[in-house]
């Protein structure tokens, strides 16, 4: 079995990491914004679409109701 070591050093903060890397405040802010924006955009995309799901149900019901009428219209278009 491969060996392992125990890490005792404290977890660094993001400020400490940025400082150690020599990143400017502007570079750090850009990266923070980028991570947060992409993360929130992704959360939006994957959020449950309750509203659109209900509108889809409404549409289905409406289509069922409008079924014969559309047929008539189609027939009319065909004859025209």
């Amino acid at each position, binding site marked *: 079995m491969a060996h*392992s070591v125990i*890490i005792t050093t404290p*977890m660094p*903060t*993001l400020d400490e990491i940025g400082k150690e890397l020599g990143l400017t405040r502007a570079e750090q802010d850009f990266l*923070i914004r*980028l*991570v947060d924006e*992409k993360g929130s955009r992704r959360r939006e995309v994957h959020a449950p679409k309750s509203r659109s799901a209900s509108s889809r149900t409404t549409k289905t019901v409406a289509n069922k109701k409008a079924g014969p009428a559309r047929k008539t219209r189609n027939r009319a278009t065909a004859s025209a």
Partner: protein
Amino acid sequence: MPPQALEFSEKSVFLNIPYDDRFRRLYLAYITGLIHLGLKPRATIEIPGGRNRLDKILELIRSCRYSIHDLSRVELDRTPPTTPRFNMPFELGLAVASAKLDPTPHDWFVFESVHRRASKSLSDLSGTDPNIHHGTVEGVMRELCNAFVRQSQNEQVSVAKMLKTYREVSRLVEDIQRKTRARSVFDSSTFQQIYFAAGRAAGIPQTR
């Protein structure tokens, strides 16, 4: 005036891996995995080319408490004349010598993708069990968690959390590359910015 020596760091890990596009996924896996463990990856891509490169590599290894040597890329490359890549085993040799001879502590780890291959390609390592990652992102993270254990129970990390961060970071790489105007993700400034972004994605607090 002699150049200032790099300061020894208890949380630095010298990352000895191939820097090419075929290794990009595992490169990101190492960075994101290490940040979850509170460790700082250091790599030769931070060292500019030119004179005294070897001295600088040795200095970088000696400044790190740990090193990881990924020997999974042992095959011949396609560019003529076809040659195996000797950089990784060579730097492993430097780290082993440093661990034996230097007064500062240094633990080194060999990572591989195939069982028992390292004992064939580098039989001097017999008696050392490599960490086998099977060439997968998840495998790299699992083996990082096997090699490095955080002392505090409430700081224990999981592969699942690392994978989540990895997926977030993967989506940011192109934007970071555009910002740094780097041709490759293996550029020094891109490497540093990916590391910082991975810290944010991992949920590391900004201050104490």
